[in-house]
């Protein structure tokens, strides 16, 4: 696991560093501290990371604009901030967790654990997508299904358009609300759009969804889906 901590308070940065090391122990491949956004962006342009700890108020600047650019990146973001009232909005933008200050190791461990399992309903409302150098926000409501494409994903929207997201299918699966279901190793579908399951010869299953479209269902997931949605 490669981690970056962006925090302008030296004492707090060191506290985070100490705790992350203790929580991740052997899993940790690299850990870097940055005290400003410029520094962090320089670091990100040369190094890849898996997890970012971000303070929302860095050197008197409002970090929300930065948050938008961070959540469009492949890595997960955990906000560590004094502004508890910003939590709801941060979650809407698809952060993994929001850790209010002051914090302890237990709380931080819980946040990190969310990378592998979701314990609460994610509240993501928007996915930030980088498009020709600009950033646009895609409303989660508009997404019909998502297709994995290597380290990227393709967001297929209800209006037929397609956007490319930098996060992997696994990462998005953790962030998206409950109505999105992993139906195949390469597909996540909005189950509110699902109509029926089509059984094809050779134990092949397809999910019929809106717009006369159908998506493949993984053999191992068929039974669970059928019970949950078509019982």
């Amino acid at each position, binding site marked *: 696991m490669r981690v970056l901590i962006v925090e302008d*308070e030296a004492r707090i940065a*060191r506290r985070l560093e100490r705790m992350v090391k203790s929580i991740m122990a052997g899993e940790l491949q690299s850990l870097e501290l940055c005290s400003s956004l410029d520094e962090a962006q320089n670091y990100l342009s040369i190094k890849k990371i898996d997890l970012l700890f971000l303070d929302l*108020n860095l050197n008197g600047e409002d970090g929300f604009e930065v948050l938008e650019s961070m959540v469009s990146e492949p890595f997960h973001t955990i906000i560590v901030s*004094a*502004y508890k009232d910003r939590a709801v909005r941060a979650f809407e933008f698809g952060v993994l967790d929001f850790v209010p200050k002051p914090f302890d190791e237990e709380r931080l461990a819980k946040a990190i654990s969310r990378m592998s399992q979701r314990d609460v309903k994610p509240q993501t409302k928007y996915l930030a997508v980088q498009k020709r150098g600009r950033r646009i926000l895609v409303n989660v409501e508009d997404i019909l299904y998502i297709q994995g494409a290597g380290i990227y994903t393709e967001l297929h929207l209800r209006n037929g358009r397609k956007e490319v997201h930098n996060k992997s299918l696994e990462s998005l699966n953790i962030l998206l609300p409950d109505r999105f279901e992993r139906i195949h190793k390469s597909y996540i579908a909005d189950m509110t759009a699902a109509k029926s399951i089509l059984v094809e010869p050779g134990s092949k299953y397809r999910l019929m969804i809106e717009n006369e479209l159908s998506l493949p269902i993984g053999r191992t997931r068929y039974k669970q889906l059928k019970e949950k949605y078509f019982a």
Partner: protein
Amino acid sequence: MNKQILLFILAAIVAMFCTSCGDPPEYRMSDSGGMKIGDDPSWLEKDFDHSEWGVDRNIPPDVVFWVRLSEYFEEDFRDQGVTIGIPAAYEAYWDGHYLGTNGELGIEGKTEVPGSYHFTLQIPDSLCKKGQHSMALRATKAHRKPNIHAFLIFDQYRNLIEAPLQMSKYMFMFAGAFALASIYFFIMFFANPRDFSPLIFAFICLLFCAQLLLEYLKLFHAYAYPFQHIRLHLIGISNLLLSVLVPLFFMKQLATPRKFWLLGIWILGLLLFEYKFYHDFDFLARRENIATAFFCVLICGFAVYQKVKGALVVFGAWLLAIVLGYWMLQARFSFVSGFDVSIFVGFGLVLVAMLYILIVRTRKQQRDYQLSLVHSERLKNELLRKNIRPHFIMNTLTSLIDWVEESPDQGVKLINALAGEFEILNDIADEKLIPIEQEIDLCKNHLKVMAFRKEIEYLWKQEDVIEGELIPPAVFHTIVENGITHSLPSEDGTVEFRLLCSRSSKQRTYRLLNVARTRGSNKRKKVKDGTGLKYIKSRLQESYPDKWTFSSEAIEDGWATQITIVK
């Protein structure tokens, strides 16, 4: 609402003058009579021919002279009376018959007792038949002023006695209203002597009231004729003062640019005019009034052009007053000239408009005052919130937990520094100005807390600080906060704050240098007018209205903030 009141007053003024528009016949010496110095019993005869007589303005004080006027009655009258207006003491003879004496003639070594300016007598019905009549007056005039003139007004005797009183009753009401307004605004001025507008308005109302009473005095008070001259002087003085005060009031209220120059030129013009025409009261008063009206229309018109609040209402009132005045000029009134009436009606209207803008302004002042109270409360609130803002308190607490976990001794030090900062903030929260040493203590405590959080060594230096000098609270503190946020430590790992104080006879200056590497100086410029700087500027404005300057700029080795307070 205001417009309705204005219309109502306008209607009342018009109505009151229309009720008194009578037209009894009037005879003037200059038209139908003449005078002659000397004393001849035959001059009282009805049929004496005085066509050769003229008007001699230079009557020696110790001579008897006669004034004769002839009249023609179109019909037989009953209960007829005559009001005689002549500045003298005299015996009156109607068609050769003695009617009465006004005052006591200064003849045969006796001192003259001046007659009253207006004198009303009844004429027997037998002497009021259709045809030619004559009035002969045997008179003395011990007082040179006013100049000799004579007129007769015929009407029913009862009317002659009552009509002037009827007319003056409206004037009393009018004058009473302005007397009250005057008292009200005098009191208002004494309640708040810094504002001169109510005082000017109080004087205008008082003068207007005095002028009304003086102008219509002849209708209700039988004063001796020498007073007529004094009365005209008083009216002239009052008129001149009004011609200065009214434009001054408008210029002040409507914020006319360069008003003192304009007023100076205006007063100079008025004085020249007075000097040239002082002998002719009516001519002077009329020209002055007309000129003042147009000057004020120009002032108000310019204010309308500049979109000054309330200007449109007064401009409209002036135009209406001029139209109304001009219209009333055409109407005829007994005892008073149409011009007098038009001036009072027109000016009465303008005074109401003046009252209106004064009230508009008073309301605005009250609102401003309320706002300033709210503003002060907000600043106090902002000061108190400084240290409970989540960014400060939560970050401090997080660091504190860390220190306590790692090194409890240091944790205690941080708690003490934090307590110190809170204590000072609590002490100064209610103050608008605090001693500079208290502010410095606050900054030092804040730096201690921040040193624990940021693990940077913050240095405080000061030069030429005079203890006890007063400054607004948390101003340096805010600058220090900004400095901490935007500085990176210098090569030696320190961030230094240096307060340089200097003072001269005219001002004192505080220069707070933040010696450090500045983090992205462009970004800092962007936040230049953030809430912190707004707080500083609001505090300075609160305690030193428009007598301070504030600058904040990048310098070679950091950032410099300068506050200058002008004495």
